[in-house]
């Protein structure tokens, strides 16, 4: 390929070549360099850059920057493992798990949860001792949607489901509601005719959720029944 389309940069001493215009986070992930992230999805024009986990240091730029919103440039020198980056990532992670209910074993996403993966990567516990544990003042499950159950206490509000749902070209769409500590995913309009059937087939939000806060009702019921049987056995 010609030089115009490809960009060469150095990440942690490793030289990588990626197409021009690629986001730095994607470039690293595609080349086997893991950077934790929750809110970024491939194809986003304007990543929200809100999880503050994908921070990296770029030589010549002030301070750590979110790699999801940086576009690769020729000759970029990137460090993903500096002390400063790790410190900020750990703080961001602590804040994210400060509402965690710690019931991993009862969760459908156990063992393939993005938060567990990041915890392992950062050598962090899933329940922080440094910050006060403040559970969200919300019901454990919200069954507003005809076929999708939402568990706000697991949700990290990354917004992946909101983005992916907006890409589906359907009348109904998920979105955030309220604000601050009370922010939640809203299923407003999900009781309209046809939404249940559409969502059951689409399940984009269920599959994209990094923490298992969104699940199909039938699957969750089956999982809980299975769990119950296992516990009593």
């Amino acid at each position: 390929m010609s030089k115009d389309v490809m960009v060469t940069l150095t990440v942690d001493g490793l030289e990588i070549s990626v197409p021009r215009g690629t986001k730095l986070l994607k470039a690293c992930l595609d080349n086997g360099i893991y950077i934790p992230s929750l809110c970024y999805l491939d194809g986003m024009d304007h990543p929200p850059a809100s999880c503050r986990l994908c921070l990296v240091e770029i030589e010549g730029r002030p301070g750590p920057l979110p790699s999801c919103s940086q576009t690769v440039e020729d000759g970029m020198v990137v460090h993903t493992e500096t002390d400063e980056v790790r410190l900020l990532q750990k703080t961001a992670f602590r804040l994210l798990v400060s509402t965690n209910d710690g019931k991993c074993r009862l969760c459908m996403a156990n063992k393939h949860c993005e938060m567990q993966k990041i915890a392992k990567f950062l050598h962090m516990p899933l329940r922080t001792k440094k910050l006060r544990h403040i559970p969200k003042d919300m019901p454990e499950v919200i069954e507003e949607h005809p076929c999708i159950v939402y568990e706000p206490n697991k949700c990290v509000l990354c917004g992946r489901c909101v983005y992916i749902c907006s890409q589906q070209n359907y009348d109904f769409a998920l979105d955030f509601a309220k604000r601050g500590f009370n922010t939640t995913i809203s299923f407003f309009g999900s009781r309209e005719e046809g939404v249940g059937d559409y969502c059951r087939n689409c399940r984009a939000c269920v599959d994209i959720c990094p923490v298992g806060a969104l699940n199909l009702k039938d699957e969750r019921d089956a999982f809980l029944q299975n769990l119950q049987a296992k516990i009593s056995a």
Partner: protein
Amino acid sequence: MVDNLEQDQEIDLEEERVLDAIAAELPGISRDVHQLIPVLQKIQHIHGYLPLGSIGMVAAHFGIPGAKVFGVATFYNQFRFNPPGRHPIKVCLGTACHVKGGEIILENFTRRLGIEEGETTKDREYSLERVACVGCCALAPVVVVGEKIESYVTPSKVEGVITEIEIQNEIAEREKAKDEQQSDSE
């Protein structure tokens, strides 16, 4: 029980009237999505609140998902989803009132009226909301009932405020009954 049912029906009918009025008004408004918040504000200005049914109508008008409109409306504190009561109760939780125990006063009202903040009692008599500073911090903790400012509010005063309104209602009712009797005998 029957009373409750009648009350419910009355409320449904009123909400229907409000929704019909909004449906009649909407087509005349620009479909530019930037007009979303002004439209919500206008609905609240005319009807005193945003009925949940109106969210879907506004969304359909602008051609955006209902959840988006709901998200915008719930983000801003200025929008309410319950009709205001005849006696709107505003509990101040500004800095001074907060320090002087405004939260306790709010809790007293929620317990006494059986509604949460932002809600309205079933009989539409009271609505409860929290505000941030009404500008008379020296009187903290402050509660505004209708237009009247209650100062140095204590739990016993909460009881007093509600009892006062109840007594006034009773007097008004008795006088009304008396008038009716008089006009009947005439």
